[in-house]
């Protein structure tokens, strides 16, 4: 029972509890705060898996970008005409049954398969190697991703602007 195991259990529990808050809370802002802590705990899990660059990227983009965007979206869509901040759920019981079944299936599959595992090595810095892969093996997806971001930026800005009256 070393520090690695305990850290994993703490962060995994944190992620699952925050995600549960996100799914079951009625108040929309509590959902967003639940997502915030879920994403932060997932970033900690990345650190435990030796992905240091990815953890910082996750924090910067998901928490500092996407979550702020979601919060803005919530606030802009409820404040001004009194649309309720509470959100209900539809058909929770069938949803729970389906999802529980899927979860059982996935866990059984995970425990039964013989994964081609090997002992993990020392933690290595990953930034340089990820950068090298971006410029050699994954060059085309990299360029396509930048075009995708440009298109998303232009499209979202165009769609969300005020009407010219």
């Amino acid at each position, binding site marked *: 029972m070393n520090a*690695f*195991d305990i850290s*994993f*259990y703490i962060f*995994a529990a944190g*992620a699952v509890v925050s*995600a*549960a808050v*996100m*799914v079951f809370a009625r108040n*929309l802002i509590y*959902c967003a705060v639940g*997502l915030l802590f*879920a*994403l932060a705990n*997932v970033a900690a*899990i*990345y650190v435990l*898996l*030796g*992905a240091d660059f*990815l953890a910082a*990227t*996750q924090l910067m*983009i*998901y928490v500092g970008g*996407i979550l702020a*965007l*979601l919060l803005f*979206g919530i606030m*802009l*869509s409820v404040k001004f*005409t009194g649309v309720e901040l509470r*959100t209900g*759920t*539809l*058909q929770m019981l069938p*949803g729970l049954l*389906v*999802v*529980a079944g*899927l*979860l059982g299936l*996935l866990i059984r599959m*995970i425990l039964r398969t013989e*994964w081609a*595992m*090997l002992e*993990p090595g020392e933690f290595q810095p*990953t930034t340089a190697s*990820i950068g090298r*892969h971006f410029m050699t*093996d*994954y060059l085309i997806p990299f360029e396509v*991703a930048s075009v995708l971001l440009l298109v*998303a930026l232009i*499209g*979202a800005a165009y*769609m*969300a602007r005020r009407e010219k009256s």
Partner: protein
Amino acid sequence: MIQVGLHHFLILSAVLFSLGLLAVLTKKNAVTVLMGIELILNAANINFVAFARYTDNGIHGQVFAVFVIVTAAAGAAVALAIVLNIYKQLKTVNLDEADSLAR
């Protein structure tokens, strides 16, 4: 408890995936459905990174996880713009009421 290995990370990822799926299936508000989708994408990312560490495929899992994060960001931005437009048109973000093109 047993030593943490690949299975633990995969089970964590499966649990997060099913919670995200529950949010997508049962929530009325469009923004909450988006949050569920982000959670699903994060669960898939944990899978990628866990396999990158515990098998000998090198670091390709982490590279792909970066692409997933980038695509998720683009998708969230566009989806929120659409949600805002729906709100402007229909004055509601309840997905049940946004189910027909004719209005």
